């Protein structure tokens, strides 16, 4: 029996239909796409989306819908590149574009990632304070737990735990339901692009740019490519990796929409927005304690997801460029550099948050602008690499329609990046409110 021989030779699972085979293969492949998308709904995203809802109600939901295909197309390209080359993004930039671009991308990534990690721990500190836990306990404990998550030497263990954390985000749908939004208005504002009444203000422009910036971040390119390489996805897995990426994109946009709907509750109850933790406390009398506690816990969950993914993107990128062993399959003693970079990112950011009077607003502005600057150029490199026939061959290079879509995305992101730069240089470009 060929089947029995195969079964004894390889550690596979036997199924009796092609349909079951496809489902099982998908379940084995799913992970990097879902994680990269959902981890992008990090503490900064919670803050941005709830603020968008609290200040503009459901008016900006259409921006999220527009971002769905952009998320998918960009991340599909990195998944393809990772599967075909078996290498990470940083390594590919170094190899194909030389040391200037390699160094620039790596430094920019590390700086933007570290600043983002500071905002993640700031969110943990803020949310746990509102739950009555001192930041001096919550922040170090979270850092230790985040270290423990990866130091097991098992990619699968890390992936399963993180997928579990991603799925906890369904709590946002429950919270949105309890907040009882005007569903009809929300549906209309999702499919019909519209702006709140009044002039186009500086804060509205910043908010739209922030939504774009928080939904597609540069670290995601580095993370997913390294992750599919670490998971050793095969070229025949590409179809399932695309489904994984699509599933992740849809889930993250739906969760982002739910966050806007929760923020919309503050808009309808005329609660001024300062930060999501304060909003949770202010909303409690109107929508009940469940939403308050769930929102605070989901803030922590978002920050934990963001921290592990962002720190890994840094550690993988550094390991690739330095030529160090860099894999979650390895124990600490087999890949010390990789784990030290991960640990330094986590503990460094946690330590910064514990410094009294750290200028968090400066950190947040820097993160947004650095990410906004880096993203369009990172996607240009992606576009060039995905047209690299020498590297990918005819089978895996972009099709002409892929290129058209990507150049439109790059143009839009560049325009937003220029607008952001103009806003920074000329703060009075648009009216203040």
């Amino acid at each position: 029996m060929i089947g029995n021989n195969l079964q004894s030779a390889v550690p596979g699972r036997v199924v009796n239909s092609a349909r079951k085979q496809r489902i099982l293969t998908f379940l084995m492949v799913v992970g990097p796409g879902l994680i990269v998308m959902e981890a992008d709904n990090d503490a900064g995203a919670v803050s941005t989306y709830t603020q968008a809802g609290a200040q503009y109600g459901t008016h900006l939901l259409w921006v999220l819908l527009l971002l769905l295909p952009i998320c998918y197309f960009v991340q599909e390209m990195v998944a393809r590149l990772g599967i075909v080359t078996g290498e990470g993004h940083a390594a590919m930039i170094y190899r194909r574009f030389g040391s200037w671009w390699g160094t620039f991308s790596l430094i920019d990534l590390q700086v933007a990632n570290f600043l983002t990690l500071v905002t993640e721990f700031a969110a943990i500190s803020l949310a746990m304070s509102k739950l009555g836990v001192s930041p001096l306990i919550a922040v170090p404990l979270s850092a230790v737990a985040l270290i423990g998550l990866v130091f097991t030497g098992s990619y699968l263990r890390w992936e399963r735990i993180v997928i579990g954390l991603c799925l906890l985000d369904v709590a946002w749908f429950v919270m949105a339901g309890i907040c009882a939004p005007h569903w009809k208005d929300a549906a209309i504002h999702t499919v019909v692009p519209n702006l709140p009444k009044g002039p186009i203000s500086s804060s509205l422009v910043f908010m739209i740019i922030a939504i774009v910036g928080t939904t597609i971040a540069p670290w995601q390119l580095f993370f997913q490519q390294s992750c599919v390489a670490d998971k050793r996805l095969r070229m025949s897995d590409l179809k399932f990796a695309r489904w994984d990426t699509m599933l992740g994109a849809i889930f993250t946009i739906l969760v982002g929409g739910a966050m806007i709907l929760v923020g919309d509750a503050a808009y309808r109850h005329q609660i001024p927005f300062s930060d999501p933790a304060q909003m949770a406390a202010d909303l409690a009398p109107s929508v009940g304690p469940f939403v308050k506690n769930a929102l605070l816990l989901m803030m922590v969950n978002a920050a934990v997801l963001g921290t592990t993914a962002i720190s890994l993107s840094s550690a993988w990128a550094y390991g690739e460029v330095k030529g160090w062993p860099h894999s979650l399959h390895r124990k600490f003693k087999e890949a010390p550099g990789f784990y030290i970079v991960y640990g330094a990112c986590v503990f460094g950011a946690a330590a910064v948050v514990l410094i009294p009077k750290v200028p968090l607003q400066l950190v947040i502005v820097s993160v947004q602008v650095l990410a906004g600057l880096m993203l369009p150029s990172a996607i240009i490199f992606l576009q060039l690499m995905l047209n690299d026939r020498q590297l990918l061959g005819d089978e895996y290079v972009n099709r002409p329609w892929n290129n058209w879509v990507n150049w439109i995305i790059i143009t839009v992101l560049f325009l937003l990046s220029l607008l952001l730069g103009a806003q920074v240089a000329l703060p009075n470009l648009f009216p203040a409110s």
Partner: protein
Amino acid sequence: MIAQKNPSSDTFIVIHPLDDAPEVKRTGEHLGEMEMTRGVRTLLLVLRGYLILMIALLGYHILDLAGVFSRHLHR
């Protein structure tokens, strides 16, 4: 190899990527730097200038937000 079909019994064996034999990848180790047209090279040069300018602008803005310039003026 995702799955192997057993032709005699219509069953499939599905193998997890981490348990499968490593496959040959297109790493491009032998390729070196990418061959680029003059247009692409110019585009990257412009991009480099743009990024340096924008980072300088960001640095200025951050120092401004931190009050470095206003403190200097007060003296």
